[in-house]
């Protein structure tokens, strides 16, 4: 079972955190600090897995963002790597060429998509179509539609190029 997933930038800023085990806020902060440091210190060609405490860490970098998952001893590293990839695909499809800024400004959406995909640390629905269908249906229920918002968000910080480069362009 996945114990938690963290998304953080190359500068070490946490963009999304999802915990599937109960931990105190203090403990979460400690873990995050430690892992961000460990992962950022690794060189590009190194392997995507590492042992950490009694867990296995699986991580992958997409453009400016690191996706980092902690799984248990018996869990499968490679399939976790593809869990990360599928999540990135889902974000990409939903936002249309997703970039870090999308996740910053629409963090709640990133959480909603994740909840449709993974629940309780296990894959709930691995079909891309089905996950996106669920999110679309939810979106149709929304009112106050304002499709300026996302563009508007990107325009406000024109100089942050790394954060606005698509995750798939690396």
């Amino acid at each position, binding site marked *: *079972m996945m114990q938690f997933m963290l998304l953080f930038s190359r500068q070490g800023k*946490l963009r999304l955190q999802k915990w*599937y085990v*109960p931990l105190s*806020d203090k403990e979460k902060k400690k873990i995050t600090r430690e892992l961000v440091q460990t992962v950022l210190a690794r060189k590009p*060609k*190194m*392997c*995507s*897995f590492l*042992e950490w405490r*009694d867990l296995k860490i699986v991580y992958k970098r997409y453009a400016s963002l690191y996706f980092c998952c902690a799984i248990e*001893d*018996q869990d*499968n*590293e*490679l*399939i976790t*790597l*593809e*869990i990360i*990839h*599928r999540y990135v695909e889902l974000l990409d*499809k*939903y*936002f*249309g060429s997703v970039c870090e800024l999308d996740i*910053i400004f*629409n963090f*709640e959406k990133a*959480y*909603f998509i994740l909840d449709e995909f993974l*629940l*309780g*640390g*296990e*894959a*709930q*629905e*691995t*079909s891309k*179509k*089905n996950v996106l269908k*669920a999110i*679309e249906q*939810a*979106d*149709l*229920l*929304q*009112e*106050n*539609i304002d*499709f300026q*918002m*996302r563009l*508007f*968000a990107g325009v*406000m*910080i024109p100089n942050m190029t790394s954060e606005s480069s698509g995750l798939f362009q690396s």
Partner: protein
Amino acid sequence: MPAVSKGDGMRGLAVFISDIRNCKSKEAEVKRINKELANIRSKFKGDKALDGYSKKKYVCKLLFIFLLGHDIDFGHMEAVNLLSSNKYTEKQIGYLFISVLVNSNSDLIRLINNAIRNDLASRNPTFMNLALHCIANVGSREMAEAFVSEIPRILVAGDTMDSVKQSAALCLLRLNRTCPDLVPMGEWTARVVHLLNDQHLGVVTAATSLIATLAQKSPDDFKTSVSLAVARLSRIVTSAAIDLQDYTYYFVAAPWLSVKLLRLLQCYPPPEDAALRSRLTECLETILSKAQEPPKSKKVQHSNAKNAVLFEAITLIIHHDNEPNLLVRACNQLGQFLQHRETNLRYLALESMCTLASSEFSHEAVKTHIETVINALKTERDVSVRQRAVDLLYAMCDRSNAKQIVAEMLSYLETADYSIREEIVLKVAILAEKYAVDYTWYVDTILNLIRIAGDYVSEEVWYRVIQIVINRDDVQGYAAKTVFEALQAPACHENLVKVGGYILGEFGNLIAGDPRSSPLVQFSLLHSKFHLCSVPTRALLLSAYIKFINLFPEVKGTIQDVLRSDSQLRNADVELQQRAVEYLRLSCIASTDILATVLEEMPPFPEKESSILAKLKKKKGSSKLPDLNDARRNINGSTNHTEDTETAEKVSTHSFTDKLNVNSTPSTGASLLVDVFSDVSNTPAPNDVSEEHFLRFVCKNNGVIFENQLLQIGLKSEYRQNLGRMYVFYGNKTSTQFLSFSSSVSSNDLLQTQLNIHTKTVDPVIDGGAQVQQILNIECLSDFSDAPVLHIQFRYGGALQNIAVKLPVMLNKFFQPTEMTSQDFFQRWKQLGAPQQEVQKIFKAQHQMDSDVAKAKLLGFGVALLDGVDPNPANFVGAGIIHSKTTQVGCLIRLEPNTQAQMYRLTLRTSKDSVSQRLCELLSEQF
């Protein structure tokens, strides 16, 4: 995707996020956040009722602030209100806030549960899913209690939508993890198993996770899942990729589901039914064969997904361990990966081969890759891959290749990364001991370890070499000669001095015949290192010297001179001084006979488990360590083993462990050297020490000090003068027995001299739901600052649990309150006027400033409150005496609250600066 509705138009939120991002400094960010918090607070408190949209926006802002790492202490109520909104987006944000921010806050949980209950009953699948996600995300006990009977019903009901079934399955899984005792098995299990046949692959995927977890705990209830899982797996692996439509991932059919099905099958032995068994074998063969086919895509996702299934299949093959053919194929496949250009695959192949090495069928096949693995150790650029190579070498080691592997590990150690040196040292030490045919090789190897990586040689390792030398008389002469030679080096590691001192003290006589190592030469050699060593080593050397006096009467005079010198007899260190005085007296008064009896050679050590192995297990977690004592490893690697080889092996193993297993305990007329080693440390590994509730016990003596999902520890304590008694209650929260339960208290070296704690042993078994009690007797010898640590160890369902809790034994517990008149108080206050006797601290109130509460806390702290002493009635003045065995320290306390500034000023005066300091630290955290 429609281009609409990517954001739901919370303009204020976007502006706020931009503002935060534009902040140039941390201070500016904090300022902006505080402004926003004030704004939101006033909006929430305002008279005007907020509409749903604003409420949603502000709750979302709070969430964002929390995710930035700031604390949020309000808004929970508003979020709960959103739950009952009938607008989806408002409900959704409400649930998100709750999922991220609420941890079992009991007042709110009831309200939240009500909202969830309504949504679950709404029959609206989107709402039901939100509610189920929330339960799965929070997963608290209260929620489990409220919904655990409802969710299985939703899961198996005929009219439940597929997506709701998926959420319900994983929701139940999460609740089962939090509170296994609450999730009922029974009528619904058969129907859950049947979900493996569901048409919707998403439902099957979610259900498989649930079943695999439940089956681990009660395999019998889910036995029928085996045939269904095999059938499902078989259909997947033989399907054409496109059959599964969107469940095909980069030309691989349903990789996630396949991995999960293979995981489920690992809960069971190979199927007994022949047809089923051959169908499963076919599946596994197909998966192995596919690995040899040319890839259908060059994308890494394709190969990852394919290999994920392959590795899981290999894990199942190893788990079954009954098909030599499959095991060898698996091994060959992994062998190919060992040289793959993808680092990830090399890493996983090394890891997977480790488990393969412990199967009798594939052990030989694994061994054929030894050169590749050694090469990996030398050339891999990533330390985590090298670590795996070390693990594999350790796992594939047997008597036939031990010398080669130990030599390679030793040479790697010279350049190894600091992070893994200690582990390699332990592994080398274990292999050298286990596979030593002649013990001279063992002694050489350990001395090499100390030479190459002395700093990483832990106590366990050098204790161990001494134990073995003592227990085996055929190696003692060689050991003495070898350490003597090693000590000749101008710079040698202190660990070598320890080993050398001990061994020469015991067996120096065996080499004393050679004039080059005459008694005097041996003594001078050891003593030349004396002044460079730490106190414990010097203490050990002094013991070696007194042993010399017994072994070699001719050097008695020289050694007595050394003991008599001021640097020994008047050494500032108590231990050294005491040894010098006692040894000197002993050598003067005792007759040769008495001396010979007291300083007799050490009796053999009793042997239970190698202390090094225990240490490595602690380091790695016992589950991860391939068991070298596994019976099948004793066949010395031959796959076609016969009775004969097995017996032969047994005999030789026997003779070699025999000496180590001598059960005679060292005589109780304990030789002095026993002392040095009496702390062959059994203290558990210093894992994280819980001190979460520590400070709550400063002003009270009873309560719960630790609680996790398995165990609750409660305390009740009473103190009188310098003595205390603590009752520790261990409550098993689960329905399963805790086995091999043990608990002990440890203190650091300094604290051991300040605080005596005597522990009564406790029953090793705690039944499910039961509570046992342990009594600790405490004696305060002198004032102290640290706190002892309570270590608990037990087995729960096979896994070893280690818990360490900081015990709330603090200095103020030994307070005796003292009443005195105003006049007396001021007189003493003035007497304690030296600058170091007074400690003052001004600090911000962490809690509401309530005079009655403060009074209660001060009384709980242990002092008497003196009325009418301070001219300002709002201030508190108190007095008490700290009792320790050696001294009593009078303490005066003054606490001045300033309600306007929300600050306190605390002043303490005592006759001892360390006492003032410590009491101030403890008390200032309480208000």
